[in-house]
């Protein structure tokens, strides 16, 4: 297995022996992950492999039964989701979760919430500090909205914009918190090939422009192969392989996990792309 060109001190996110149990089902079983700075790490695996559960534990929605989540050197295991966002991890959801009856701009402003401090009385009396902060929140949100090319729909309700735009809006909202780590759950799902292409270019550029690191769940093998620096494969809650995309692509164990033994490689692509 190839080594990545990073030294160990620039690890952004690390999970150690992460385990999450639902009733009798071990959804995530002692998973170790290391995400390095400025890297795009893809988490892949068949349905039910535990990928989204890993995301939910990392972002604080679930508490793990065992193991640790270490972010920028700090143990954030079991912290509340809003505190995890404040510490610098922002996420999106597999089934887009926007605030449908609010405008696109308001949606993106949500990301800036944790960077504001105005309390009840400053908000009621609109103190100068509160006005400045509101202005900054709005400017950041508008910039993020522009970054995903949605400036023109800023005042539209989120429910009314196209599906592909909703995906990008969710990413803009996550970016609005100025995160160090962006956690994207199947960002290309439901996008057409052209939108997917744009997304890949966008994410690549983001690493440079915004000093972020990206952790990704992805089913589209073209995306995985196209942009990942490192790929981790989960199956049945366990990590079964990790490596460079091209190595994973031809890894027998991975193909087996997706399709069972002795299947054609072409089908492997097809099945993977379908999800």
């Amino acid at each position, binding site marked *: 297995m190839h080594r990545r060109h990073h030294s160990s001190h620039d690890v952004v996110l690390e999970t150690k022996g992460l385990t999450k149990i639902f009733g009798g089902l071990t959804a995530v079983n002692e998973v170790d992950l290391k995400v390095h700075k400025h890297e795009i790490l893809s988490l892949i695996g068949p349905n039910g492999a535990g990928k989204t559960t890993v995301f939910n534990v990392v972002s604080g929605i679930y508490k793990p039964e065992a193991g640790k989540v270490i972010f920028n050197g700090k143990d954030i295991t079991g912290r509340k989701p809003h505190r995890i966002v404040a510490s610098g991890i922002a996420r999106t959801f597999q089934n887009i979760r926007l605030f449908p009856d609010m405008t696109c701009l308001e949606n993106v402003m949500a990301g800036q919430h944790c960077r504001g401090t105005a309390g009840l009385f400053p908000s009621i009396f609109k103190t100068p500090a509160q006005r400045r902060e509101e202005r900054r929140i709005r400017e950041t949100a508008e910039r993020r909205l522009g970054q995903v090319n949605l400036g023109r729909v800023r*005042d539209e309700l989120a429910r009314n914009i196209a599906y592909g735009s909703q995906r990008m809006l969710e990413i803009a909202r996550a970016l609005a918190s100025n995160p160090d780590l962006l956690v994207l759950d199947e960002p290309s799902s439901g996008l057409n090939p052209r939108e997917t292409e744009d997304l890949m270019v966008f994410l690549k550029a983001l690493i440079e422009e915004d000093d972020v690191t990206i952790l990704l769940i992805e089913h589209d093998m073209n995306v995985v192969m196209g942009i990942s620096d490192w790929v981790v494969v989960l199956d049945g809650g366990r990590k079964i392989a990790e490596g460079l995309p091209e190595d994973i692509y031809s890894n027998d164990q991975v193909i087996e996990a997706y399709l069972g033994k002795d299947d054609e490689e072409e089908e492997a692509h097809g099945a993977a792309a379908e999800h």
Partner: protein
Amino acid sequence: MEQALSPEKKSFLKSQPLVVSVFVAAFIVYPFLVSDYFIDIAFFFGIYALLGLSLNIVLGEVGLFDLGHAGFYAIGAYTTAILNTKFGIPILVLIPISALAAALFAYIVFSPVIHLQGDYLLIVTLGMGEIIRQALINNPFDLTGGPNGVFGIDFPKIGEYFVCDSSIEYYFLIWAIVGLSIVGLKSLQNSRIGRAWNYIREDEVAANANGIDSRSYKLLAFVLGAGLAGIAGNVYACKLMVVSPESFTFWESCLMFCIVLIGGMGSIPGVLIGAAFISLFPEIFRPFAMYRMLIFGSAMILMMMFRPGGAWPRKRGAVAFRSLLEGTGRTDA
């Protein structure tokens, strides 16, 4: 320029300052033109408007079902009644105290249960409202006077110079409070707190995952809503000079619920329309008084079917935010 960009989104209130001024002027002139009877109707319109605004924070902004809001109203009214009759504390001083009492009560009761979702929380609020009413009837520590209530509540006054003892003064007292509340709530709507409430209403999981501490904000909504209801209770108590448990039944909570749903969740003009409907309708249609509940019920059903956003739904978009790109750069849109 804005108009050219999105004419359909222009706020009615902003585009029609004349209409708004006429309304405000009419409100000021109104009590000088009509009899005390009609002034009192407008007074109760004001009480319901304040109660509607208070429930609107919880139900409209955050989307939490609260069918026990009359409980907070009762706490405000009884705090005023008891402290005024037993200790002679002036009514006006008791306004913030009543608000704090109701708010503190909401904080204590809802802290442990605020994580409950939808109908589960609804059941808690329902129970809370009834427990408060039953407690008042049972006359704990000989404070609440049982079913008869507390009477002999003073007029609001500042020393001896100003005594609020006529219908017209009460009318201005309640509408001044409603007016101030509207101004404050309007700023809140366009602040990070108001948005956080709306994010929670729209999708609580997404709100949490975007850095909103939903627990604190839900609790804040209850505390603030209870505080406003407590103020309404204060004014109600000094207007009637007597408070008794029968004024704070489940039916009152239902009326507040109707106000918000009929008017439009999260919409301040909507709440005023809803409150007008609830308080003026029974007066105008006296002969149909028997059918009041039937009519309110039907109105709610029809509203849900044909106009789920309410009579005057809150408008979003260009109204709330003027673009920085358009060079206005002001947050107080």
